[in-house]
């Protein structure tokens, strides 16, 4: 059996053609003067960028579970209880409870899973605008050593939160978007939409 020539290989004619034209095409090109300065100026204008950490392992990624309005109604009631507890503790500081977001019965409730790795912590609380920053929502130690988790029903919208470790240490979620509040404190953000949390 004879080998057939590869139909995609160069023919002698094409090789000669390429030898004629490629030296001209391979000549170096320069950009307009000041290129580096222009790029670095733009870079400096954007710096410092808060780069997100590496992709979190599956057990640390926020998860959402969509529930029917009926099932959500029950959960919303429970959630309203949680919010009410936070309200009692902080009403004087944060204003009337009705100003804070609460799950509503008319919308689908989204379960959002929060997780953080804190191997040395004795207790971890979730504080956020959804519980009046009260710190009463404690995370449970998960099956993975050092990892604390909690799943909460949250209404649609943008929620700011952070973790409070051992009641004293404020830690932002390294896997989430980070913002700075009016007082310069960094908090994490989760956005709950119709398609899930991000």
């Amino acid at each position: 059996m004879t080998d057939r020539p590869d139909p995609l290989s160069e023919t002698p004619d094409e090789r000669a053609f390429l030898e004629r034209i490629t030296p001209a095409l391979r000549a170096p090109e320069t950009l307009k003067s000041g290129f580096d300065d222009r790029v670095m100026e733009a870079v400096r204008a954007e710096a410092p960028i808060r780069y997100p950490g590496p992709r979190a392992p599956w057990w640390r990624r926020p998860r959402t579970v969509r529930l029917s309005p009926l099932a959500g109604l029950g959960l919303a009631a429970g959630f309203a209880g949680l919010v009410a507890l936070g309200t009692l503790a902080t009403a004087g500081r944060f204003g009337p409870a009705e100003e804070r977001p609460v799950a509503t019965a008319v919308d689908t409730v989204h379960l959002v899973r929060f997780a953080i790795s804190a191997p040395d912590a004795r207790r971890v609380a979730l504080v956020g605008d959804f519980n009046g920053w009260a710190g009463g929502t404690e995370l449970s130690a998960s099956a993975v050593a050092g990892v604390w988790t909690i799943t909460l029903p949250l209404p649609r919208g943008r929620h700011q939160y952070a973790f409070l470790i051992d009641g004293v240490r404020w830690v932002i979620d390294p896997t989430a978007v980070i913002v700075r509040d009016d007082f310069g404190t960094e908090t994490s953000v989760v956005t709950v939409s119709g398609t899930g949390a991000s």
Partner: protein
Amino acid sequence: MEAPSDAALVAQVIAGDAEAFALLLRRYRDAHARFATRMLGNRDDADEALQSAFLRAFRSLAKCAEPERFGAWLYRIVINECRTLAARRARRERSLVRDAATLGTLAERDDPVGSDALREEIQHALDGLTPEYREAFVLKHVEELSYEEMAEVTGVGVSALKMRVKRACQRLQGLLEEAYHD
């Protein structure tokens, strides 16, 4: 003193030292200037595409999964920026038609290979290829990448790339012959 590696510079930038990005910029800017110019046909567009590519690379540096292979990662961004700019330019229907009389004059001259005029003429023919063919041809015969490297930076399979290079070569030959016989 040994120059810092790409990975070290990437780590420095991510840690907040934006000035370290200037070293990456200087290291790769010239290599990509030629690719972008061949792809887009002129220095202004190449400049625009590369500015945009470097800025995009800076913004998403944390997504560079293998910082020691920053060059290949940046190549993908540059290719995408060139594709985007070329598509935008096509939508604007910017005319790339050059003065045909110039080509006629060139045909009668025995220009040495590498002269600006010859390069301009070949570039004009290159502009006549579809973006896909031009990209494959430039990566193979100008940037001298292997097909495997081309597949990595373009996301296109090796067989398809071989076919594009072959067709690009034939089409380019035809376009240049037409120019000489006009």
